[in-house]
């Protein structure tokens, strides 16, 4: 598994969001993105996910060019900021709805992933009644349930309590196997240091270094 950024530049409403990004991500590693608010971490992840087309440059996923050879990476799981689900469905039903699209996983596997992130798979409450932390956990479960090759997690421990953070950290560490690429953006420096094999430093839309 490999993701390559080749001179990627993105401009929105005249303002550069990503500037000349050249970087290669390799499988089996967890990458942490660090930088101030608005430095381009989320945009970098969205461009990998195929949600945001670069103005210039290429993004190659396993040598296939995104937006040209492929529309969306074949196997990707994303935790987007403020994950929104169908408010009138339960957490399980939301995941079942998504899982039915590819039909790759069973109901049992959905329940298992819900339990893994710290949600009760038998909880009948609808998502509208979920707390912020529960929605966050559901977002993580949606991102990882189909065991994708690329996992992008934007602020995964936001709004989580201590035990929630521990469970999510364990989930992320478990994902490292199977040559996956995991990219995590997080404001908590300690947690990011703990989770990441490589930390990418970003500032004003540029990658300025790595640790």
């Amino acid at each position: 598994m490999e993701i390559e950024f080749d001179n990627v530049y993105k401009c929105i409403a005249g303002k550069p969001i990503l500037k000349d990004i050249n970087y290669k991500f390799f499988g089996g590693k967890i990458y942490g993105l660090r930088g101030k608010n608005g430095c381009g971490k989320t945009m970098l992840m969205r461009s990998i996910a195929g949600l945001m087309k670069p103005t210039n440059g290429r993004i190659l996923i396993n040598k296939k060019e995104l937006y040209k050879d492929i529309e969306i990476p074949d196997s990707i799981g994303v935790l987007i900021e403020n994950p929104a689900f169908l408010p009138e469905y339960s957490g399980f039903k939301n995941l079942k709805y998504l899982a039915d699209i590819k039909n790759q996983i069973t109901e049992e596997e959905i329940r298992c992933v819900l339990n893994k992130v710290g949600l009760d798979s038998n909880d009948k409450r609808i998502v509208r009644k979920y707390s912020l932390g529960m929605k966050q956990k559901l977002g993580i479960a949606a991102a990882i349930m189909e065991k994708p090759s690329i996992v992008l997690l934007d602020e995964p421990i936001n709004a989580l309590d201590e035990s929630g953070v521990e469970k999510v950290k364990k989930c992320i560490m478990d994902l490292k196997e199977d040559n996956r690429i995991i990219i995590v953006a997080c404001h908590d420096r300690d947690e990011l240091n703990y989770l990441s094999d490589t930390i990418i430093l970003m500032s004003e839309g540029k990658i300025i270094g790595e640790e």
Partner: protein
Amino acid sequence: MLINLIVSEVKHDILRHKWRYFSFFLFMTITILGKCFYMSEAGIGDFGIFGLNASNILLGIPRYVFYADNQIVVPAGWIVMLLFIPFIVGDWCEYELCGIGVYKILLSGRKNWWIAKFTSVFVGAIIYIAIYFLSQILITIILNGDLIEASDDIWLYNSGYSRMLSEITTFYLYTIAMPCVSFITFFVCSFVLSLICGSVKSFMMITIYIVLGVFYTSPYFIGNQLMLLRSTHFDSQGIDIIDSIFIDLILIIGGYAIGRSYIHNKDLI
């Protein structure tokens, strides 16, 4: 995967919008029934002239086709009903693309998602038509079949139109087939417009479009074709069924293509 996605999209959209369907049913039934009772109480008309084409046909009541004169009457009630459509579909995509729609795009791709969503909206339009007919049947049953037929005198008194018998096929085509196709077109175009411009702007644009259609009889104003679903009178000189359906098909295909291109290029941020 595409088939799975389409089936899932249609199924869940139907389930999620069940209250919208129900409110549409109530809205249609209550407004039309109200109008019928009002006209009856006021003694100024018959029960058959407001929105009962479908029930006329379904219950085998004799049908009539009328030539309208040049008088322009703004059908406010009908316009309100039509505006129910952009209201219904307005938030359909806006809401999804801020949440679960993104997950679906990630799982299936933009193209597949758009095909599934468009199909679901198309099916949604057909369901609304079915609901319309259902409300017509209910009204007919409530009012009793006899009340549907108006005498020539009442009709002339009420509208000033003269009544002409016409071929039954023409009647079916003009008052059922064409307005149903136009309904689907209107539904789909409202959806695409709201996807691109947002629900508020598209609602305003559609309102202007419908009201303009009252003053200009042109197949480009599909609100006129939709009117035929409501009323047993129409100006057959003003609307050509071939032109209308052709324009409807162009609008549906164009709507699909524009939406597809928009979704393909849209930054989901």
